[in-house]
């Protein structure tokens, strides 16, 4: 199996070094590069695209989200893992709509960080009940206008509903008679559609203004 190529964007040196250390300890992961500000990250990630970016949002020269959007435009296959101290659902949801595929709290134990990177790379994505509720609201507010590729399938809707009711992945898997891996894949697809939805909305807004 090919190792997963990971880059880091984090301004605080201890944390950056700590993350590097964690990546170096695991031979399924390869550190591509580590950046300490948004501008360097934008250039570096574009020239040297990894599989996954561990992304801090508050950077000294601006928001990591803007940097992520610009890199995503050139390399849509790069997956961004938001790295945050506080579980601020509003901010996390915004990041997810703009193209992030998951988030990690900074005090997550090293072993779990590695697990989360593997899970993301294998097509899974984390989603809390609060985030699931916000996703449902987003799709409800624009039910008919979306492009076909941005509409949720019946199964995806089921998964979302159960998630929003606070069920854990394994409970959803049991209830829907599918594997946990499949639940994760559904959620991964929901994120993608959420981003399409978000893009469509942005385009509609743009045309709405110019008309």
């Amino acid at each position: 199996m090919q190792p997963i190529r990971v880059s880091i964007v984090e301004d605080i040196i201890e944390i950056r070094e700590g993350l590097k250390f964690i990546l170096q300890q695991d031979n399924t992961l390869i550190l591509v590069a580590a950046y300490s500000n948004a501008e360097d990250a934008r250039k570096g990630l574009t020239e040297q695209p990894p599989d996954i970016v561990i992304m801090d949002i508050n950077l000294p020269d601006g928001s990591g989200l803007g940097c992520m959007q610009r890199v995503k435009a050139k390399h849509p296959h790069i997956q961004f893992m938001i790295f945050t101290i506080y579980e601020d659902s509003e901010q996390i949801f915004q990041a997810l709509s703009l193209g992030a595929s998951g988030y990690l709290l900074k005090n997550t134990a090293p072993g779990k960080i590695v697990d989360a990177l593997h899970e993301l790379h294998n097509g899974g994505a984390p989603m809390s009940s609060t985030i699931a509720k916000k996703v449902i609201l987003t799709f409800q507010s624009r039910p008919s206008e979306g492009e076909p590729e941005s509409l949720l399938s019946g199964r995806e809707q089921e998964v979302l509903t159960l998630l929003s009711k606070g069920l854990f992945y394994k409970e959803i898997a049991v209830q829907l008679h599918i594997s946990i891996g499949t639940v994760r894949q559904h959620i991964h697809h929901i994120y993608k559609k959420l981003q399409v939805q978000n893009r469509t909305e942005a385009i509609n807004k743009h045309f709405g203004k110019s008309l």
Partner: protein
Amino acid sequence: MPSLAGRVGLLCMVMGALYCRAQMVTGLNKDSLHLLLSNVAQDTNCVQLYITLGQQYETNNPDSALYYYKQAGLLSKKIRYPEGVLKYISNYTAVLNMQGNLDESIRLNLKAVEIGKQYDLKLPTAKAYTNLGAVYQHQENYPEAVKYYLKALPLIEQHGDPQAHSLLLINLCGVYRNMSQSDKAIDYARRGLMISEKANDLYARGHACINLGNCYKDRTYNEEAELYYRKAEAIALQLGDVNMQETALINLGNVYLALNLPEKYMPIFYNALPLTDSIGDISGKAFVLLGIGDGLFRKQRWKEAETHLQQSIAFIRQHGQKEVLQKLYQTLSDVYVATHRFDQARMFRELHDSVELTLMNEDILQSVQSLEAEYKLQQKQNELLTKDLELQHTRAESMQRQYWLIASYGGVVVLVLMLLLSYLFYRQRQLLNKQTIAKLEADQHTVRLQSLLKGQQQERVRISQEIHDDIGSGLTSMLFISRSLDASFADDKLVKKLTVLASSLIEKMNEIVWAMRGEPELLEDFVLHLRSLAGDLLGDAGIDLDFRIEGTLPEVTLPTEYRHSVYLVIKEAIHNCIKHSKASQVTILFRLASSWSIDVLDNGVGIAGSTTATGNGLRNMRKRITYVHGQFSISNEKGTRVHLELPPVV
């Protein structure tokens, strides 16, 4: 005759405050309407049918009218037809106004406004506002009347129903006349007239002319007043509107009366007399009779004057119009003086005086009543003011409490940070460069935090952001530093402790930030939050979770302190299960009925009775739950059972 002029003013006002309805059709055959009603489906047509039927009953049998309007309302609600509900309200309240049930009328019209806004029905909303204005005008609460009329105005202007528009302007004219602001009154009347002329709406135009005439009469611009009353009379004739014609004539007569021109007002009052009878307008008739009596006296037609005045007095006595009666007595007394019959003259003079006395008494009584009312109002305002003060006082107290709570949290964080700092200095001085020191100078920030926390929520959010950014990133740095230390000194227990401590401090900080932000959280979200917390913690420890909710989750928002206390206690209970119980399963049970309770049960070894019950952790849990007025208990069952009784949040 000042008091007469005042009365006529009131007469015009009552006619001037026009009530708005969508459509008013009378004179239809009730039987055929009833027949139609029994055949029609339960739809919007049926609603209209009920309304029309009610309108047929309105004059002679208002209670039946109310019944049919109510049916229209009920059916409209059933078939979700908001326009129908509004029709019901406008017609129903018109009857309530006639019956003097003004409070109920106001209540319903306010509801109509609400419905109108909800469904974006501009014209009906505007009409409901107009009707509210008319009711307040009738209650002589003029500022309130103006308020509602002005709310209606932009809506009606947008919609462009010219009749409603000009009638509203006319009502505004009336209110400003009531408040003696004649400039504004004239302005509104002119605008009303202009719109009615443009729309070729005779009805509105007639009313506009009468009101404009009234305004000019108030200012004693008699020629202009005369002109507009004449115009109104001509329009009334064209329309066959007896009400309007009568009002125009009486007001015109009064202009001439004020100018002492009996040749002019006599024929006018004679013309008006049969009209007052045909529409049964008693007060109108009183003024006409008085005018004619005055004219006969001035023309020195003593014999006719005497007969007329005696008949008028007999009529007026029946209907208790005391002001007019007083004037009639006076005029009759004057007639007797002129014809040298002094005994009769004195008798009617005395009658005049006694009525005057009664009127004066009534006036005094009224002033006393209004004074009393004002006193009561003042008293109420004082009570409100006192309550307000008390409320502010309690608020200030609770802010102070929160301030101390947060300050003490801040203090704990600072202490622990300083301890850790010195430890780190001792172990790995070279790793701590200047940048990290700056980031960890959290005590400075905390001092700033304390000075800024003067209670404002905004400030709290801003500061929580700062704690989060500065202390949070500092603690995270520390966590990563301790991990790298752990890698080089793998067998050092203190380093391991440091890692755990840093991680748990971050967690605690997040809880503080969460509590400080004080964002409202729904009960449902809170329960989910607890569930995912329990699932994560127990999952990591390899313990099964059974999470159950009995009863339904009401849609309520939990106060910050309530949710924070309950959250911390449940978390502590879960930690205890993980640390001490050796359980393989934990059950968390929410019961939400008339009272709320939460149970945390495990199937482990149980607690060792009295010794642990006084432990520090348990004492804290009990204190937190008592703080939110709940009860905490812990007992041995098949394992340990922590039971919380909580006051329900409504």
